[in-house]
């Protein structure tokens, strides 16, 4: 069954339907418990954790502060190494670039390592239109693709399914598959189906975890080996990345790699860390003959305009924020209707899709701060959400490039309510008469007040306010001789 959603503008309906699916909720709660425990045991020393997060945040901030220079340096060094660099403003341009590379090589199949950016540009869909098959090779992505679905988590794409559901998926789509809930057997099934695909594919496509400007090196983090397959076996390797993934120095890589794996899955290290600096050199016997790097903007330079929102781009895509989010835990990744779900998705998506479509995502947080507490690069996600809420309500200032859909969340009724609130809160007389009347109306408090009373009784104001009680107390004291 496909859980895929129509988009973030239908968040409310999608969230309600997810909340009503007990199996889905159980799958997510189980997965989140597991990932939270793993992260906790990976960071057993809070002092070391704090130091590492400080350092990682500082590295990312420094790299972002030099972003335009670093991108040019990256391009220069990649080009020198023989990697061809392409720039794409949006999804269409990125797909055009990839399509033209594929067509130049007469490619019929692209085998893919995990890449959320390729999800962002809907690469598979666009290539299919041109008769080019894209095959996901990350186990989770493979399962999701068989379902005709989308990932529900940026690190563990099939986290919404349990092993029985995976077996059902395989049984539906794969010939000669004997249903089983033995995970080893399920993985071996995936392995054997994909092996020939790696062998045959014309092009391998991957994401990038860190692109090193100093050396023109693309770093990839993975456990399965499919990333190495995609970047080593086919004749052509295309890497696609958001422009924010560039780091200045090779020495910036070890701390970021360290904090990434521990935050994501609680691993001290992943099985593979792959550093690619050029296509196959003269005399070498394997590896791609061509390596391409596609640098995608797609709203990132928008986030970059605002000094505070720029922190969004510090993200290294570990997924810890979603693993710790009480909202994500309950509604799962698909409900968000965006490529990036959870807290980080809530602050990235408005820049990719505009606020008009995503304004309900921006409010879908109790601002509990669990995300900010675990972010390895210290992105203050709750503050970013608060800022986006401001953008949703207010038109942009004259000197700043407006966020697409800015002020689209403004509502006349709500702004009148807020005006009333400000009036009451800044004028003690009005405040006192308002709270006084509430306390007098106690007995007449309606039993049903909107959605609040779906699962709660309506709140009952006390007979007298604290202000009144204190007056009485003062009076009693001064009445005493």
């Amino acid at each position, binding site marked *: 069954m496909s859980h895929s959603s129509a988009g973030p503008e239908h968040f*409310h309906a999608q*969230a*309600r339907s997810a*909340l009503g699916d007990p199996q889905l*909720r159980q799958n997510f709660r189980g997965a989140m418990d597991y990932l939270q425990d793993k992260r906790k045991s990976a960071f057993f020393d809070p002092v070391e954790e704090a130091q590492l997060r400080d350092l990682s945040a500082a590295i990312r901030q420094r790299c972002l502060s030099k972003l335009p220079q670093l991108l040019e340096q990256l391009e220069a060094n990649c080009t020198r190494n023989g990697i061809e660099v392409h720039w794409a403003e949006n999804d269409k341009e990125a797909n055009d670039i990839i399509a033209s590379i594929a067509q130049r090589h007469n490619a019929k199949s692209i085998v893919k390592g995990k890449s959320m950016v390729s999800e962002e540009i809907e690469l598979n869909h666009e290539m299919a239109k041109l008769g080019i098959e894209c095959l996901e090779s990350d186990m989770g992505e493979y399962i999701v693709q068989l379902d005709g679905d989308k990932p529900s988590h940026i690190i563990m794409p099939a986290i919404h399914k349990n092993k029985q559901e995976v077996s059902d998926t395989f049984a539906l789509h794969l010939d000669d598959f004997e249903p089983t809930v033995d995970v080893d057997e399920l993985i071996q099934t995936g392995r054997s189906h994909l092996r020939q695909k790696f062998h045959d594919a014309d092009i391998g496509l991957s994401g990038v975890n860190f692109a090193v400007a100093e050396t023109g090196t693309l770093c990839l983090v993975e456990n399965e080996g499919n990333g190495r397959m995609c970047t080593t076996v086919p004749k052509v390797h295309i890497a696609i990345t958001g422009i924010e993934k560039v780091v200045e120095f090779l020495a910036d890589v070890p701390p970021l790699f360290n904090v990434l794996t521990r935050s994501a899955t609680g691993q001290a290290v992943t099985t593979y860390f792959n550093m690619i600096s050029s296509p196959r050199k003269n005399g070498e016997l394997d590896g791609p003959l061509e390596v391409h790097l596609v640098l995608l903007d797609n709203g990132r330079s928008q986030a970059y305009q605002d000094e505070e929102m720029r922190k969004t781009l510090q993200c290294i895509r570990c997924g810890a924020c979603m693993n710790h989010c*009480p*909202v994500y835990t*309950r509604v799962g990744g698909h409900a968000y209707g965006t490529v990036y779900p959870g807290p980080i998705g809530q602050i990235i998506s408005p820049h990719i899709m505009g606020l008009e479509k995503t304004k309900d995502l921006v*409010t*879908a*947080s*109790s*601002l*509990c*701060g*669990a995300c900010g*507490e675990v972010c390895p690069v210290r992105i203050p996600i709750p*503050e970013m959400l*608060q800022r*986006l*809420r*401001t*953008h*949703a*309500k*207010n038109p942009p200032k004259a000197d700043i490039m407006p966020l697409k859909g800015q002020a689209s969340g403004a509502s006349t009724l*709500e*702004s009148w309510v*807020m005006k009333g*609130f*400000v009036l*009451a*809160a*800044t004028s*003690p007389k009005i*405040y006192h008469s308002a*709270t006084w009347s*509430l*306390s007098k109306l106690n007995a007449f408090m309606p039993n049903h007040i*909107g*959605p*609040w*009373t*779906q*699962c*709660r*009784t*309506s*709140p009952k*104001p*006390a007979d*007298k*306010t*604290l*202000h*009144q*009680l*204190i*007056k009485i*107390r003062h009076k009693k004291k001064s009445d005493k001789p």
Partner: protein
Amino acid sequence: MRIYPAKPHTVYCYGTCLVDMFDPEAGLDAIHLLELQGLKVIFIEKQTCCGQPAYSSGYTNEAKRVAASQMALFTEPWPVIVLSGSCGGMMHHHYRRMFQGDNIQSHVEQFCDRVFELTEFLVNVCRIKLEDKGDLTSVVMHTSCAARREMNVHVTATQLLNQLCNVALQEHAYESECCGFGGTFAVRHPAISQAMVEDKTHHLLETKSVALVSADWGCLLNINGALEYQGQSMKGRHLASFLLERIGGK
């Protein structure tokens, strides 16, 4: 980690609008607790609300007007003791952020530095010693997310309860998880909020504790509403009232 001042003679009490309207007794109890520490407690009659509802809804300019009106009330350099971690977080952290780059920034920061949540003030400034005069009982505590993550005062609230020798403080599952209130979140996303508060009440009830306490009325509004709706007898109280009762101050 913040640096705490020496114990002053006089403090301001910031009741918060929710305590004002829904549990004024807790306000009096908190004042009483502070007075028992030998402090003179000033309650400014003109205080209203910290402005958080506007701030968290994206009405920053409106929130700034409310914040400015509140800060103007506390003219003496005395500490401002807030009876909620969430309002404390607003006044200690977010006022600072809202006025960043503003011409009154340094003035605002001085104010923020004077803001303390009740339990951290009792523990770290008053060095309070509680003598438990009550019978054996068990209690479970819910700490608001702001109290925990912005103010780090779940530690001090726990320390206070641990001082009570006849009170067994029970831990509940997913203790650090949000109860689903989040101010306007509960109304804008009622279905998600419901799922969260139902889990929270389930975990609180699971402990079979006699009492439920919290130092935040926002969460209590949410949790108590849900408990009552479910027909449960458990009902949360403000920590200040519970403490005062235990030491025989009521």
